[in-house]
């Protein structure tokens, strides 16, 4: 079968800094694929290149047969994405954010209300649908981002740290929903996470990335064999030499930083 995602020797430089360094991998249609690696490894940068937000410095990316860099419009019809960081309109209500997304993705009008209700109920925000997003907590915004991302059913779904900062129960609920989409609609899932247990439980294949390079890939079993370890956590440690860092803290700090700089700009 032709791979639905293929990344061939892709490099991305920001100035002198190489964030992604000659990465190659493929994902088969209908597969659940996890991309694991420490903070700053190049996971998000890779996803941004696959989703037309960033142009690679060199190399080739293909999505469902389309050259991502050259056929951006065709590529954009193939995927959905939940970003790692905020992408909601804070000044609109939860419902309006969902509605806008439905129009952007041309979701069948008859399906829209039903799907918005189903997903907002899934993430426990239905009661708050008329509230302006600005008034939401971080966790609520995260849940809304995911609900919005799952509204249309593309061939490929990118989930960049989708469950970051959510409680175990919500995470379970969401993964069950995503697995169901994967099975019912053969939707290909490409996700990153720093909960290794999550990757182990959900992903059919895993790639480890560190300092912009893929250091190993395969099924959980294969990775354990390759590294001579007993579980994914040990394999990860051996391959990247790092503990799984608590990204919740890093990212909360990042958000605060960004907020400060925005407020500073606003005051001017």
């Amino acid at each position, binding site marked *: 079968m032709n791979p639905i995602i293929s990344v061939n020797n892709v490099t991305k430089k920001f100035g002198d800094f190489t964030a992604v360094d000659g990465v190659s991998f493929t994902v088969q249609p209908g597969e659940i694929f996890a991309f694991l690696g420490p903070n700053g490894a190049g996971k998000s940068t890779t996803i*941004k290149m696959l*989703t*037309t*937000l*960033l*142009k690679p410095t060199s190399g080739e990316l293909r999505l469902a047969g389309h050259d991502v860099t050259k056929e951006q*419009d065709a590529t*954009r*019809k193939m*995927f959905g*994405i939940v*970003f790692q*960081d*905020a*992408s*909601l*309109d*804070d*000044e*609109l209500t939860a419902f*309006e954010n969902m*509605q*806008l*997304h439905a*129009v*952007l*993705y*041309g979701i069948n*009008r008859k399906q829209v209300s039903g799907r918005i209700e189903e997903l907002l109920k899934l993430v426990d925000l239905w009661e708050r649908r008329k509230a*302006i997003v600005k008034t939401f907590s971080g966790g609520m915004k995260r849940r809304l981002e995911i609900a919005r991302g799952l509204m249309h059913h593309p061939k490929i779904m990118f989930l960049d740290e989708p469950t970051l900062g959510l409680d175990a129960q919500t995470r379970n609920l969401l993964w069950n929903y995503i697995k169901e989409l994967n099975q019912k609609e053969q939707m290909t899932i490409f996700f990153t996470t720093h909960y290794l247990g999550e990757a182990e439980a959900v992903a059919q294949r895993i790639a480890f990335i560190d300092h912009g390079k893929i250091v190993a890939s395969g099924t959980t079993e294969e990775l354990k064999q390759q590294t001579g370890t007993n579980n994914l956590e040990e394999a990860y440690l051996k391959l990247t030499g790092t503990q799984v860092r608590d990204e919740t803290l890093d990212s909360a700090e990042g958000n605060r930083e*960004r907020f400060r*700089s*925005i407020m500073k*700009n*606003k005051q*001017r």
Partner: protein
Amino acid sequence: MSVIYILWLRQIKRFSRSGIRIVMGFVQPLVYMLALGYGLNSVFQLSGRGSYIQFIVPGIIVQTIMFSSMFWGANIIWDKQFGFLKETLVAPVSRMKIMLGSALGGATISLIQGIILFIVAFVLGFRPYNWNYVPIAIVFMGMLSMAIISFSAGIGAVVNDMQAFVAVNNFLLIPLFFLSSALFPLDGVPTAMKIIASVNPISYAVDAIRMTLIHQSHFGLWNDFFVLLGTLIVLLAFGSYRFKQIQA
């Protein structure tokens, strides 16, 4: 619902929910109008040119439209910083539609502000010479607004922080306004000044609105129209080209 409509609606909703923007949108030009209009009226009348308030209202309307349209570029930077831009950029719709929907929203807001100002001016004693020409004035306001919005979209696409954006704004827009025919008649100023104002597209917008509202023109309405149209086309091309290049 179409993509253009929903993005237009988004701008309108955001605007209608931000009380401070609505108020600031016409307080500032109102202050200009009162200070300049009443402050300089007697001087202006002494030189035998009639009412300065009549003369200056088109200029202030242009100023309102210029600055509220420029705000739209700030919106793009906002959307970058808050992340919403990514949501639109990965969507399976052409960037042209994304830009157009939002730009039309911005233009609508600018026009509303221009019209509010016109009403305030009317209350203060401003009278258009012929009401039939008022819709034509509004068409020119729309053209000016779309031109500035396209320009600001181009700048907003390249620039990433608000300070740089404000700097561009200050170094370009403010001189363009003051060196146009907005605040003084072009006949009777030194030649250098006249030349500068004559190569400044803002002068033509002012001139067109002045012609349609108070029947005074320096360049002639057709010249105004073609200069403004040319400017609009160039800036639209610039803005949409830049907008297509955005990486997030």
